């Protein structure tokens, strides 16, 4: 679809005005940040776009309170630079989708919130939704709404922050976000265990994550034509603790084989690559699925899929997150995947596929009738006219 109109508001009141005008004109809006994740969700069906490109800038940063606020269009890179200067970080390690989508541009912090984007550290520190403590957004009635705030603990009223986080721009135009931060660990190291099959690898990761040594990343890369299987475990802390914990982990995991180690720099690049799903980014024309399951059931899920589908996978989150790339043909494996997930529990998202396929298929796991009813109700309570990102999550919502 060609989009003639692109709105670029410079302030929250601009956003509200554009929304009110669009309401009057009954013109749905596609909401866009940096555009690097345009492929996430069903293709949007809106004639006009509202871009947060000019809604930028850090509005509050208190390193001593571990909190940052920024307007929605602020590039993640700018935030990370500011945090880096103070030895801090976004704890949930948001994935950068540019490798997977071969997209250009700058990912924005607003989209990280809108899509609840997390990375490997999610298992230890929590997701974007766990660190997003405040939001400002404009709802589909053209009203500026605030939820949460800038303090670490806040249970005042319904937690709309959580609802809007991960709503893929379908509930409101986020104008400003506030995140909790953590100190950046002084040192990172990785334990690499070779040659485990999927079941053993998950058992190994469960043992590591069930240990007192605060493993902050646990991934398994099964054997491929060119490389043997590798199970990787990350430890981050002050250097003395890292040394001690690597030693202790190695002892604990000795039944799984003799590990090798990666020190700081190679660890950083390995986990950046896993965060961005580097192992499955190419070939770019393959469909890419993201499945969230209970870790110990993940190998069974993959075993079921391998009976009918060909492709490659790797496990993050100790097995709880399975990335699977398969041929973008037929239904991209949707039927087999939905059936297998039905048996194991959890949910699957078709993260990458050609537009026409994402339009024809359920991108997100279909909901039970009762949950779909609540979902429609929530959508209407924010956006009664269905103005924002129509159909992005579910057809007709």
């Amino acid at each position, binding site marked *: 679809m060609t989009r003639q109109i692109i709105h670029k508001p410079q302030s929250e009141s601009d956003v509200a005005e554009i929304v009110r005008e669009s309401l009057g004109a009954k013109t749905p809006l596609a909401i866009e940040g940096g555009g690097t994740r345009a492929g996430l969700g069903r293709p949007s069906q809106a004639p006009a776009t509202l871009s947060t490109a000019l809604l930028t800038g850090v509005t509050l940063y208190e390193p001593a309170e571990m909190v940052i606020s920024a307007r929605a269009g602020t590039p993640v890179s700018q935030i990370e630079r500011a945090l880096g200067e103070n030895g801090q970080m976004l704890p949930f390690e948001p994935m950068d989708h540019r490798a997977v989508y071969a997209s250009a541009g700058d990912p924005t912090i607003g989209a990280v919130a809108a899509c*609840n984007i997390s990375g490997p550290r999610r298992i230890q520190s929590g997701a974007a*939704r766990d660190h997003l403590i405040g939001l400002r957004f404009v709802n589909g009635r053209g009203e500026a709404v605030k939820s949460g705030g800038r303090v670490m603990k806040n249970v005042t009223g319904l937690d709309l922050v959580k609802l809007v986080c991960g709503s893929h721009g379908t509930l409101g135009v986020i104008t400003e976000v506030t995140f909790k931060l953590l100190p950046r660990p002084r040192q990172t190291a990785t334990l690499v265990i070779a040659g485990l099959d999927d079941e053993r690898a998950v058992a190994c990761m469960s043992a590591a994550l069930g240990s007192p040594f605060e493993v902050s990343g646990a991934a398994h890369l099964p054997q491929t034509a060119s490389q043997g299987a590798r199970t990787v475990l990350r430890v981050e802390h002050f250097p003395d603790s890292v040394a001690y914990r690597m030693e202790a982990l190695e002892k604990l995991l000795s039944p799984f084989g003799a590990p090798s180690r990666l020190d700081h720099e190679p660890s950083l690049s390995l986990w950046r690559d896993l965060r961005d799903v580097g192992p499955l980014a190419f070939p770019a024309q393959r469909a890419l699925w993201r499945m969230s399951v*209970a870790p110990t059931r993940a190998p069974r899920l993959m075993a079921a899929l391998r009976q009918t589908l060909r492709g490659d996978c790797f496990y993050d989150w100790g097995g709880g997150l399975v990335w699977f790339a398969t041929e973008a043909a037929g239904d991209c494996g949707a039927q087999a995947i939905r059936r297998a997930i039905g048996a194991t529990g959890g949910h699957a998202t078709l993260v990458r596929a050609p537009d026409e396929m994402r339009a024809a298929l359920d991108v997100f796991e279909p909901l039970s009738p009762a949950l779909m009813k609540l979902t429609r109700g929530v959508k209407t309570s924010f956006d009664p006219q269905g103005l924002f990102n129509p159909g992005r999550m579910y057809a007709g919502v």
Partner: protein
Amino acid sequence: MSQIAFPEPDPRILARRDEIVAGLARLVAPESLITSEDERRAFETDALTAYRRMPLAVVLPRSTEEVSAVLAYLHGQGVKVVARGAGTSLAGGAIPQEDAVVVGVSKLNRILEVNYGDRVARVQAGVTNLGITDAIMADGFFYAPDPSSQLACTIAGNIGMNSGGAHCLKHGVTTNHILGVRMVLIDGTVVDIGGDHLDANGYDLLGVIVGSEGQLGVVTEASVRILRAAEGARPVLFGFDSSEEAGACVADVIGNGIVPVAMEFMDKPAIEITEAFAHAGYPLDVAAMLIIEVEGSPAEMETQLARIVEIARKHGVRTVRESQSALEAALIWKGRKSAFGATGRVADYICMDGTVPTSKLSYVLQRTDEIVKSYGLRVANVFHAGDGNMHPLIMYNVNDPAEQAKAEEAGNDILKLCVEVGGCLTGEHGVGIEKRDLMRFQFTPVDLDQQMRVRAVFDPGWLLNPAKVFPLDQRDAA
């Protein structure tokens, strides 16, 4: 005179009480239905004891199916429902109304499944908070959010209030630890939201259910994350000559990239009251005290402690006392966790719960003191300093209506102050009735209407806990 208003009970419902009770009797076993005045009295208030309302009846179902049948029936009859866990809410969240039926989950108290490989436990909602940790402790695991009331309070209530605790500085609060719930909607529909995997499919309904104060549905089961305990943990007492120094030390520890597991604050009145009760070895010659917990291997604790002591010295720390044994450590925490109870032995109190930016701690403490003094009352402060979650305990005499009014006014002034400095009305106890009429200090009408529209998606007729959270006169707009 009580200051907080309740809506007038609906006379048509009151008139039909016998019929409604008979209807309930057809749905649950006799021992699950409480109707006599004497027995209902146990449910007429929670930990905000200055307010009481006798419920129409109390039902304590034994299964999700029973909860569903009861709600479907009450929904059909247009009867209000107040969900209840252990009734330890400090905000009046579980206080009934005369025309409402209390649906309590205390008989739903089993741990259904513990899975160490996936680090998750599935429990019935009436299980106590500590009950989960007790069941998995021998295997080295625990359930992280630890409200001081954890011996009594239920997971249902923790979900209702999004409760926190001393160790939430590192581990996060309830919402960060709930993976799934089974919940009964007001019309009796049973929904499963989330499960034993991470993160929502679709809208994060779980995120809005946690902290919804019994207004979206009745939770009957939950899947919670369980964590492996550290190798060791050691609380250390830091005594200061002033609250300002202690407050500055807290901010500086965090500013230095150290996030201890817990950082708790007590001022002199709190130390004295608690020490007299718990004999925990707290220093009595200081004006303020921090309990900072470090964890890890012995060497790791040593190193982390050394870093913290160095910072504390810069802020004039007077005494540093390490616990020398597991027994002493337990005593230090027992003291902290019984601080409210100990205060309750000295006087009646109301407990405020505002959160402020940690850089504002000293200022807010000083203003709190001035505010409470200006009403001629006393205050003790014992709270979660690391995340700025203050708990001034305002002491008064519940039998003196004028003093109660003063205590409530002082509390309101303090909460407004918290909002003014960039904080919020409640960090972990919830709004309930207590802070309901202050919501407009933190939110605009538009903010509140958006929240109420979401609430209405789950319960259009507002039968669930209708006297709570939202100002009574703000409701028609939504």
